[in-house]
């Protein structure tokens, strides 16, 4: 099974406020608020750690959740953020200059 690699877009601004991550798309000023688990994935989205590794470390080790459930939720979340242009997704590691 091919894993995914995720990196935060450079076309955004993000800030942790009151425990919630708020992301603003610089392209259209849209605001997105992440829950606690999504925030952990977002913060770990370094472009080089596979999504499954991120879910294991940032979600399963921290929250009481089954790994497959967590991974499925993460895939949905990643697809939604990618569709909104705030997260980049690739089948290979994403280097900073890409």
């Amino acid at each position, binding site marked *: 099974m091919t894993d995914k690699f995720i990196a935060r877009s450079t*076309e*955004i*601004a993000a*800030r942790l*406020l*009151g425990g*919630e991550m*708020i992301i*603003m798309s*610089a*392209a259209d*000023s849209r*605001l997105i*608020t992440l829950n606690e688990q999504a925030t952990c994935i977002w913060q770990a989205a370094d472009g080089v750690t596979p999504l499954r590794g991120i879910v294991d470390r940032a979600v399963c080790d921290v929250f009481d959740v089954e790994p497959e459930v967590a991974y499925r939720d993460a895939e949905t979340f990643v697809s939604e953020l990618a569709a909104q242009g705030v997260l980049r997704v690739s089948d290979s590691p994403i280097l900073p200059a890409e």
Partner: protein
Amino acid sequence: MSPELHSVQVEIGKTAIRILTADPEFREILLARFGSFVNPAAQTSLQLSVRLLAPGTPTEGDVHVSMNGGGQWSIVRGDFRCLWQPAIGEGSVEQTANPYSIDTVLRIVHTLILAREGGFLLHSSSAVRNGRAFLFSGLSGAGKTTLVRLAPPDVPILTDEISYVRRASPGYTAFGTPFFGEFGRPGENTSAPLAALYFLAKGPDNRIDPVPPAEAARLLMRNILFFAEDKRLVQLVFQSACDFLQAVPAYRLTFFPDARVWELIR
């Protein structure tokens, strides 16, 4: 031979902009429009040169603000064209002899200047009580003007429409502005440290409720005046809004429109 230029310095939020015009009648229009915000003694290098166009009936329409390749801001609406060069703090405006076009130009130029200094203009009324400033924010119809109309007589009104917020040390300061809505007159040219931001809602009684930070950020961003289609500047404004919310408490103020609401604002 160049025509004699007349100068009017309009100072808002401790930032003075010199407006130059060759037309003495337009100078009188500026003096009347900006009243107590005219400060001939202010030290400033910021300057707008206004070239007046022949009278006509231009439509206002939407304003478009964009950065062109030469590092200049282009600010265009149906009734004016402005080029602003942030690097040297100078700009030019083409408009007819009316106070409304230059009023809008000033609002936008101030948003561009403030964005780089951690401040912003906000759709809100504001007032000073007991030496502290309060912002009352909301879109049209939220009650911004109603609230300041209900204020006790000893409460200086900073504006009923557009508040000027500048980072201070510590916290933030709100300044009076000449920008007004239904109140029909400019705010007082004074300032005070900011005590709270209230998002307005009308209701059957008066109450104050906390607003979670993420929701406060969403509401604040919705009400910050920002026109530029420039990603870097949009990011700056977002960070400024978040910084602001970490320093100034935000609440929802539900109010019934009578003077008792001011018993809560102290």
